[in-house]
C-alpha cells in the first residue's frame, strides 16, 4: 500500500510540532516541580492509585461527567467531541494496523486511510466502515452542537460564552473544520471507490451524481490535512492544551499533589488545564449581578498563563467559591486568586502590639469573632444558649481580640495571617478547652483549615445541634417559613450544609430557594473582594435577595454575622442568625444552670 502523498505533510508537521512542544513543556514542568511533588509522582506511578487515574481520565477527559452534571446537552457535546474522536483514533489505528504492512506504520496512516486504501472488501472492513462512519457522525453531532452553542448558548444552560484569544479562535476554527472536511474527503473518495460506510458512501454516491468527485477528492484531503495540522500547531498555544494537560493534572492530583501558598509548576499545570469552557462566567455573581465578566476565573487564568496578572482582576473576586464548585476540571481557582494576590502585595505586617493574655480555663472556648462583635444580637443569643445548656465555657474574645487571620489571608498576606493564627492559637490552647465554638463562618473556615488545633472545632450551628440532640436544650417549633442562606465560608468553604438545616428544622419550616447548598449565592458582603465598593456590594445583595424570595419566605436565616449584616441592608423580610432563632425558641431548660456538663456529654 502506498501511503504517502505530499498532502500528509501539514498533518505530520502539525503533529510533530505538537508532540515536541507538549513534551518539552511537560519535561520542564516536571523538572521544576517542588521536590516533594516529584516524589509523590514517583510513588504514585508505582501504586494502585494509577487505576484511579485511568478511571478518572476516562470519566472526566473523555466522558466529561462533571459537565454532564452542569448541563446534559453541554456534557454530550463535550463527550461526543472528546470520546468520539478518541474512538475514531483508536479504531482508525486498529484498522490501519490490520491493513498495514509494517509493525510501525506512519502516524498519518489511520488519518488518511481511506485515501490510500480503496479496496476494503474484507469481512471486517464492513464493520470498520460502519463503525468509523458512526463515530464520525457522533463527533459531527458534537460539532453541530458546538456551532449551535455559539448561536444559542442558553440551550446549554449558559448565559455567557467565553471570549477567546487569537490562538483559541484559530484552533476552534480548525477544529470545527476537521470533521466536516473529513466527512467531505472520505465521501468524495467513497464516491469514486465506494470504500466508505453508510454515511460516507451514501454522501459520496450522492455527490458523485452531480459533481466531478475525481477532481475534488485530492483537494478535500489537502484541506483536511491542513485543518488537522493547523489545529495541532495552534493547540499548545490555545485552550486545547487542556486536553493533554488535564491528563497530567488528573494523575498528579490523584498522587496527592495540591496547590499551596506559592505558585508551583503544579499550579501552572492547573492553569494549562483550563479548557475555557466558560462555566465559571455564569456562576460568577460579578457577571450575573454586576454585568462585569472580566473578573471571571477563566479570564483570570488567562492572565496567569499569559503572565500578565494585574491587581485589578486579582482583587476583584469575592472568593465565594462558586466557580471552583462547578469547574469541570476541578482547578483550585480560589487558591490561584490568593496566590496571585500574595505575589502582588507587600505582605508587610507588624503585630507586636498583640500580647497574649491568660484566658480563663473552661471546657468550651467560645470565640465570637470580629464580625459577631458588630452584631451583638448573635453574641447575646449564643451566651444565652451556652448558659441555658449549663455549659462550662469561656468567652475568649469577649473584650475584642485579634482577628482570626482569614481576612488577611484573603487579601493574600499569608505571612501576616500566619502571625495572627499563631497568636490566636496560643490563646485558644491556653484556655485548655476541648471544644472551640465560633459564631463566625469566616473564623470557622480558618480554624478548621489553618489552625491545626488539637481540639474539636465547631461552628455554632453544629454545636447547638449537638446540644439539641443530646437533649441539653429543647426547642419549640413554630410554623414560620424561612429560607436558609448558606454562608460561603461555611458551606462551600467548610462543607457544612446539613447541620444548620437540621437544626433549623427543629424550630421552623425551611423553604428552599433555587440556590441551596453548593449552589448558594454569596451575600455580596464578601471580605474576599477588595475592589467592590459599597454600592456594588449592595447591588449584588439586592440580586441575591430576589432569588431568596422566590418561595415567599417570612424570614431569612443565615449562620454568618457578615451575611446577616449584608442582608439587613435590603431586607424585605427580617434577617436572623441561626443562634438567634434557637435562643428564642429554646424552652425553659430543666437543667440547673450551675450544673456543669462534661464536654463529651454535650458534644458527643
Amino acid at each position, binding site marked *: 500500500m502506498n501511503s504517502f502523498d505530499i498532502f500528509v505533510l501539514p498533518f505530520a508537521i502539525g503533529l510533530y510540532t505538537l508532540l515536541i512542544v507538549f513534551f518539552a513543556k511537560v519535561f520542564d514542568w516536571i523538572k521544576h516541580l517542588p521536590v516533594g511533588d516529584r516524589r509523590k509522582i514517583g510513588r504514585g506511578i508505582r501504586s494502585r492509585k494509577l487505576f484511579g487515574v485511568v478511571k478518572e481520565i476516562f470519566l472526566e477527559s473523555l466522558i466529561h461527567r462533571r459537565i454532564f452534571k452542569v448541563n446534559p446537552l453541554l456534557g454530550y457535546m463535550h463527550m461526543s467531541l472528546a470520546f468520539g474522536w478518541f474512538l475514531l483514533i483508536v479504531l482508525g489505528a486498529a484498522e490501519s494496523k490490520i491493513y498495514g504492512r509494517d509493525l510501525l506504520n506512519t502516524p498519518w496512516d489511520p488519518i488518511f486511510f481511506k485515501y490510500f486504501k480503496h479496496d476494503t472488501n474484507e469481512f471486517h472492513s464492513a464493520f470498520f466502515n460502519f463503525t468509523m462512519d458512526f463515530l464520525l457522525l457522533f463527533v459531527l453531532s458534537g460539532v453541530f452542537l458546538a456551532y449551535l452553542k455559539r448561536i444559542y448558548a442558553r440551550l446549554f444552560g449558559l448565559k455567557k460564552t467565553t471570549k477567546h484569544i487569537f490562538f483559541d479562535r484559530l484552533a476552534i476554527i480548525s477544529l470545527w473544520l476537521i470533521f466536516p472536511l473529513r466527512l467531505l474527503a472520505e465521501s468524495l473518495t467513497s464516491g469514486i471507490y465506494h470504500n466508505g460506510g453508510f454515511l460516507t458512501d451514501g454522501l459520496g454516491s450522492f455527490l458523485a451524481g452531480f459533481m466531478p468527485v475525481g477532481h475534488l477528492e485530492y483537494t478535500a484531503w489537502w484541506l483536511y490535512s491542513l485543518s488537522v495540522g493547523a489545529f495541532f500547531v495552534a493547540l499548545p498555544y490555545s485552550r486545547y492544551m487542556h486536553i493533554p494537560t488535564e491528563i497530567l493534572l488528573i494523575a498528579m492530583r490523584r498522587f496527592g499533589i495540591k496547590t499551596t501558598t506559592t505558585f508551583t509548576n503544579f499550579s501552572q499545570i492547573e492553569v494549562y488545564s483550563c479548557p475555557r469552557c466558560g462555566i465559571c462566567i455564569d456562576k460568577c455573581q460579578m457577571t450575573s449581578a454586576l454585568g462585569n465578566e472580566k473578573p471571571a476565573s477563566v479570564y483570570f487564568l488567562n492572565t496567569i498563563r499569559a503572565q500578565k496578572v494585574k491587581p485589578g482582576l486579582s482583587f476583584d473576586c469575592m472568593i465565594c467559591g462558586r466557580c471552583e464548585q462547578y469547574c469541570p476540571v476541578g482547578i483550585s481557582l480560589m487558591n490561584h486568586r490568593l496566590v496571585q494576590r500574595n505575589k502582588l502585595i507587600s505582605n*508587610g505586617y507588624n503585630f507586636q*502590639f498583640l500580647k497574649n493574655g491568660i484566658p480563663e480555663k473552661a471546657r468550651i472556648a467560645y470565640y465570637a469573632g*470580629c464580625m459577631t462583635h458588630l452584631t451583638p444580637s448573635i453574641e447575646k443569643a449564643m451566651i444565652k444558649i451556652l448558659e441555658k445548656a449549663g455549659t462550662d465555657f469561656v468567652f475568649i474574645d469577649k473584650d475584642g481580640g485579634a*482577628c482570626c487571620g482569614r481576612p488577611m489571608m484573603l487579601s493574600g*498576606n499569608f505571612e501576616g495571617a500566619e502571625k495572627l493564627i499563631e497568636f490566636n492559637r496560643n490563646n485558644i490552647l491556653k484556655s485548655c478547652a476541648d471544644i472551640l465554638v465560633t459564631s463566625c463562618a469566616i473564623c470557622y473556615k480558618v480554624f478548621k483549615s489553618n489552625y491545626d488545633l488539637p481540639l474539636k472545632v465547631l461552628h455554632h450551628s453544629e454545636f447547638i445541634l449537638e446540644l439539641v440532640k443530646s437533649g441539653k436544650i429543647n426547642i419549640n417549633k413554630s410554623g414560620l417559613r424561612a429560607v436558609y442562606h448558606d454562608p460561603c465560608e461555611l458551606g462551600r468553604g467548610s462543607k457544612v450544609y446539613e447541620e444548620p438545616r437540621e437544626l433549623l428544622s427543629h424550630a421552623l419550616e425551611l423553604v428552599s430557594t433555587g440556590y441551596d447548598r453548593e449552589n448558594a449565592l454569596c451575600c455580596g458582603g464578601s*471580605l474576599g473582594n477588595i475592589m*467592590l*465598593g459599597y454600592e456594588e456590594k449592595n447591588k449584588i445583595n439586592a440580586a441575591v435577595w430576589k432569588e431568596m424570595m422566590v418561595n415567599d419566605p417570612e424570614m431569612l436565616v443565615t449562620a454568618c454575622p457578615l451575611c446577616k449584616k449584608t442582608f439587613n441592608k435590603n431586607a424585605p423580610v427580617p434577617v436572623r442568625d441561626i443562634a438567634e432563632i434557637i435562643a428564642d425558641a429554646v424552652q425553659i431548660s430543666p437543667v440547673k444552670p450551675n450544673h456543669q456538663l462534661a464536654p463529651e456529654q454535650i458534644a458527643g
Partner: protein
Amino acid sequence: MNQDWGYGINKDRQIDFDRNDRRLAEYIRKYVPSYKLCISCGACTATCSTANLTDFYNIRRLNIFLMRGEIDEIAKHIDKCMFCGKCELVCPRGVNTRQVILIMKEGIKKIKQNEQL
C-alpha cells in the same frame, strides 16, 4: 562642625503641605473614588480591633495623614492593620477602607523604593 551642643534643631511638627509628597493621596483618590467621601467621623477607628489594642493606630488619622502627604506617619503604623474589615462595615459613607489600606501599603513601599506609583 561636629561639636556636641547638647541639643539640635527641632523638627517642625507643622505639616508643610506644599512640600509634602501627596502623590499617594492623588493616586488613591483616583482609584478608590469612595475615599474622597471620608468625613473623619472616626467610626472606623472606634471599631478597629487594632486601634483598641494599641496606643497609636488610628485609621481615621492615617487617612488624614495620607491626604496631607505625611507618608512617614503612615509607614510607621499601617502594617498593624489586621484587615478584618470592620471599619468598612461601620463607615457611614461607604468608603472602601480595605482597598485604601491595601493601596497605602503598596504605595508606601513603592515610594520608599523610589518607584512609580
